[in-house]
């Protein structure tokens, strides 16, 4: 997997599953059956990966440890929309017949809370921990969606290519094995196609699967995106992909594309936002927004963290890093007051950063179109609707043709 710009780190040797000698690596695309998928999970686990994938808990699809196929959410489907998430169980036996749950890879690569150093009390030398805590087991994510893969790429740009890349992130990221599953059933919250992140998987993965269920039966089309992805397939019973398998994959993706009901017109979006910072629409959305920060928590790319020092008589001093949100009033605290005291300014900051200024800061959009922010918003504020409303009430000058399509 390409990790351009990452500094070479002696801290970790890149994890890879070496091809067992004498066992040939099958070329891809190929297909595997349900037993083959089970073997794939087993092989990742035996290779030393902590294997995380979709599981059902508390009425939602969440990331959990996957020991075998039995842990996958067989037959479960989600219904999503602004402020709505519902999981229902069916008899169809589909393993990946849902869109996305509230959690994302962010939770593993950039954890909600971590200790970056601790020191004995009384002003001793702060002992570095974090990256030096010792190697954590590398993680394999199985069944993440193409939009998730895109989100990981965005985090790479923010945390892996910042002036000083975060060593914990870099270590976890470099060891990460990504097995994505293309979408067959997007939810009504998804707008990945507008953001260019789905529903098909094009890059950024070690393995990409497509769940196929047609007249020829159930199977998974497998494509390798990296050498270590291909190496995992060694010893697994595969069949070379045939024309009908490739056609079937296209049908799955085309079906998903046809099922996408939500869109964002991204033409010149950064310019649109920049010239509409005083648009009255911000006050309208602020009247509904609770400033709860749910949207930033579930966003797979929102990376803001607060740094807090904690003193304890037993543990001494610890520096904690915890997820923060631009919706917290203290986020912009400066000299005794907040720079963005109003919800209007905080919502504007969030949306304009995600869809606009992120381009200048990190060279990409900050949004992948997963739809989590609208699904998990308690009052159902819909980012796509807000963008459309701003466009409809655009106060500014048109942008020269050459600058369109940023």
């Amino acid at each position: 997997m390409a990790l351009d710009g990452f500094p070479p780190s002696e801290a970790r040797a890149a994890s890879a599953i070496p091809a067992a000698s004498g066992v040939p690596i099958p070329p891809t695309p190929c297909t595997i059956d349900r037993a083959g998928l089970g073997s794939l999970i087993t092989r990742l686990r035996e290779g030393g990966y902590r294997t995380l994938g979709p599981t059902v808990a508390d009425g939602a699809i969440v990331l959990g440890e996957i020991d075998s196929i039995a842990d996958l959410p067989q037959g479960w489907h989600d219904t999503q929309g602004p402020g709505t998430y519902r999981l229902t169980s069916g008899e169809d036996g589909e393993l990946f017949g849902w869109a996305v749950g509230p959690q994302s890879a962010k939770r593993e690569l950039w954890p909600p809370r971590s200790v970056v150093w601790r020191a004995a009390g009384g002003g001793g030398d702060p002992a570095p921990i974090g990256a030096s805590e010792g190697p954590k087991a590398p993680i394999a994510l199985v069944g993440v969606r193409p939009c998730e893969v895109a989100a990981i790429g965005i985090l790479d740009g923010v945390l892996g290519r910042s002036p000083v890349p975060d060593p914990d992130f870099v270590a976890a990221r470099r060891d990460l094995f990504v097995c994505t599953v293309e979408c067959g059933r997007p939810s009504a919250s998804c707008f990945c196609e507008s953001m260019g992140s789905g529903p098909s998987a094009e890059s950024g993965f070690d393995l990409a699967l497509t769940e196929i269920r047609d007249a020829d039966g159930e199977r998974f089309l497998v494509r390798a995106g990296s050498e270590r992805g291909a190496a995992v397939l060694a010893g697994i019973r595969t069949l070379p992909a045939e024309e009908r398998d490739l056609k079937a994959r296209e049908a799955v993706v085309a079906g998903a594309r046809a099922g996408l009901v939500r869109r964002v017109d991204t033409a010149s979006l950064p310019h649109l936002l920049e010239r509409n910072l005083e648009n009255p629409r911000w006050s309208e959305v602020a009247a509904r927004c609770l400033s709860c920060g749910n949207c930033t928590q579930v966003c797979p790319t929102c990376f803001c963290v607060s740094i807090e020092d904690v003193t304890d008589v037993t543990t001494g001093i610890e520096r904690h890093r915890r997820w923060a949100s631009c919706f917290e009033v203290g986020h912009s605290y400066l000299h005794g007051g907040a720079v963005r005291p109003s919800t209007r300014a905080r919502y504007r900051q969030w949306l304009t950063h995600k869809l606009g200024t992120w381009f200048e800061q990190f060279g990409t959009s900050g949004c992948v179109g997963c739809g989590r922010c609208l699904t998990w918003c308690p009052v159902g504020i819909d980012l796509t609707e807000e963008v459309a409303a701003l466009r409809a009430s655009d106060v500014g000058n048109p942008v020269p043709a050459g600058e369109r399509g940023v």
Partner: protein
Amino acid sequence: MVLAVEAGPRTRHPLTPLLYRLAGKRRETEDTVTLTLEPAGEPIPLARPGQFNMLTALGVGEVAISISNDPAVGEPLEHTVRAVGAVSRALCQTAPGQVVGVRGPFGTAWGVRELLHSDVLVVAGGIGLAPLRGAVRALLERSPAHRPRPQLAVVVGARTPEQLLFEEEVLNWQHSGAHVLLTVDTARPGWAGPVGVVTDLLGQVPLDLTRSSALVCGPEIMIRFTARALVRQGMRPEAIRISLERNMQCGVGLCGHCQLGPWLICRDGPVFTYGERVESILGVRER
């Protein structure tokens, strides 16, 4: 099958400070002190005027503080801290000999070395003089061999006469050849100088502004009005450098707190070249 994942050398997380000992402490105003810091072990790389460090009051927390001298001349690191929150209060209360944490230096500098031959106007409001002090000192040291000797003017504003920072030193700058103008928002008995905002004094600056450069630091509103006034008086926008501020929690582009429109202040600033873009970004309230 075993994975080839090995423990490497222990790496220092970028959020880990180095330890410095408080070698000296000077009270500047009622709520502001200057801390002189000597490394207790490994030092940070050389800091340039305009840059900032993250200072840790151990067990309390960390805060961004600008460098208030020019360590390049061989002096120990100095930070001028105003007690406004828990961490800055703890830093101000640190006793000589005690240990604090330092990370840095971060951000862009004033770029004094690019100004060796130009006339320079320095405009400071309140604590904004702290990050400019090292720059003024460096500008005063510019080679007198260069003829005509480049001019330096310093305009300083404070809320009250008691809140003027480094007053003695500022008056000494006058003797070293700088034109110094002071003003306060509210006078007290005994204050003979002008009363008003720094922009009121710009007309009295004895420099040809059309071919001078400016370094400006203070409250954001003061920076905007000063920069605008200078442009109106003929200064080229790209000759004006300003220093901006936002909440900073990491200094290295990892925490997201220092957003200001298209910038991360810790990475792209704090020193920016003025221009239309800056003007329009600063023109939006609550940004």
